[in-house]
């Protein structure tokens, strides 16, 4: 129980009579890497928003034991915005400092350490908008890690990144999970990568269809979550079966 970082109980949310999420319950422990998959409109991002506190009006209970680091969906890179990589990463430390308390030298040292951890320290004085998709994604990860979180939440972090970049990013997440003893909750459309990288896979489509070790998820469980999108399901299952040699 001590290792439990996140506990979600009977989470429901609806807009009018339309259910976005219904009775979703699960928990995540320290050093667990959980991947959330599901078709478009399944409620994945809504679930993330509820956990990070960006959603109002839901019912149920969410308990987070520790700090959350959050990497949002499709962050706007604002290519011509005059802000340096270091300044973007330091944004994650704002909560520790607060208003009218400027960053100290130790904060900037911490920012450099984070940029080193994610492998972009040499880019720290570049304009953030000039980074490539993969570099920018690492910058967003550094920002999310700045507050020294216990739970790292990522919403489709692979968007706009090539295959090599994705594989390298997931390896980085895996090492962070072990080195920093954090839990990771990640929404992704890349089902193959989720099964490769995550310890636990959660299939969601309004309700929780499966929540199990990646090795123990069955095609039937996947089908129940993706039933409304048959083409997608078939492609996913083919990929899934190839990966798992079913």
């Amino acid at each position, binding site marked *: 129980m001590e290792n439990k970082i996140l506990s979600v109980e009977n989470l429901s949310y609806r807009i009018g009579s339309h259910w976005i999420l219904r009775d979703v319950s699960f928990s995540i422990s320290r050093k667990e890497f959980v991947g959330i998959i599901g078709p478009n409109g399944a409620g994945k991002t809504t679930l993330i928003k509820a956990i990070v506190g*960006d959603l109002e009006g839901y019912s149920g209970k969410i308990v987070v034991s520790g700090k959350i680091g959050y990497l949002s969906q499709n962050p*706007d890179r*604002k290519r011509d915005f*005059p802000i340096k990589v270091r300044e973007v990463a330091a944004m994650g430390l704002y909560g520790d400092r607060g*208003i*009218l308390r400027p960053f100290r030298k130790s904060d900037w040292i911490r920012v450099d350490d984070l940029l080193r951890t994610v492998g972009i320290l040499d880019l720290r004085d570049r*304009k953030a908008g000039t980074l490539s998709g993969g570099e920018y994604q690492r910058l967003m990860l550094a920002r999310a890690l700045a507050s020294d979180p216990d739970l790292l939440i990522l919403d489709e972090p692979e968007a706009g990144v090539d295959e090599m970049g994705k594989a390298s990013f997931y390896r980085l997440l895996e090492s962070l999970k072990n080195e920093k003893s954090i839990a990771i909750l990640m929404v992704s459309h890349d089902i193959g990568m989720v099964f490769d990288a995550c310890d636990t896979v959660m299939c969601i489509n309004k309700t929780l269809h499966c929540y199990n070790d990646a090795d123990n998820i069955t095609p039937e469980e996947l089908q129940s979550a993706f039933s409304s999108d048959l083409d997608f399901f078939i492609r996913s299952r083919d990929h899934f079966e190839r990966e798992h040699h079913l």
Partner: protein
Amino acid sequence: MIQDFISDIISYSFLRNAILAAVLVSALTGIFSSVVVLRKIEFIGDGAAHATFGGIAFGLLLGTNYLLMAAVTAVIFAVAVSYFTRKNKLSESSVIGMLLPLSMSLGVIALSFIRGYTPDVMGLFFGNILMVTSEDVWMLLIANVIAWVFFAVFYRELLYYSYDEGMAKHYGVPIGFIHYGVLIGISLSVVGSVKIAGIILVTAFLVIPAVTSKTIAGSFRGMILISLAMAVVASVMGIFVSYVLDMPPGPVIVVMLFMEFLITVSLKALIRVRF
């Protein structure tokens, strides 16, 4: 020619007031222009300026200090835009697009009730340096001090608010306070600029300096300072050229601002080609 200009600045208080006001207006709008351009809320300057017209017209109708009425109207406009945008999830452009013609219409209706002499309405639309008083210069100086203190104290918050409002809020930046501060600051800058730039042209003061500086600035601080320098240089040159060629200063300053933009992007392109 320059000697005559300097000699006249010393001799004539109206010219002294005009040039001081132009520099202070440029500094005031220059500092806010970076946030306006980076947040892509250029339309708000237009909206505030037209809201100002409504306030001025009611001030004239009631026989009160019309600039004070303009300031009150501009602040109400800023708060209304913010309130409707945040509470009703309407876009800023939609809300401004509704409030702008409403304020203009109310202003025109108010003017239609004024009997007899009405002050120089055209001067309010396009600026008139003869209207600038020493009290205006002092007010602009105070407004500048408040704006600079606001930017110095909340530099980091303004940077993150401009860059990524959603995540800034997530990390605890007081977005509501900064947002209202910026909108009220822009609105009051517009009111302060009316006599120099005029209601029609004030948007240029709020947009062009930052668009120019954005093309060359490497940091948010650099962008603010370059915007400020661009705006002040354009206003001094604009007043000088308008004095020498006997032209209205507001439009000449706008032309100068645009020439600065053209020169900057041309030089940048030239440097890129050569190196």
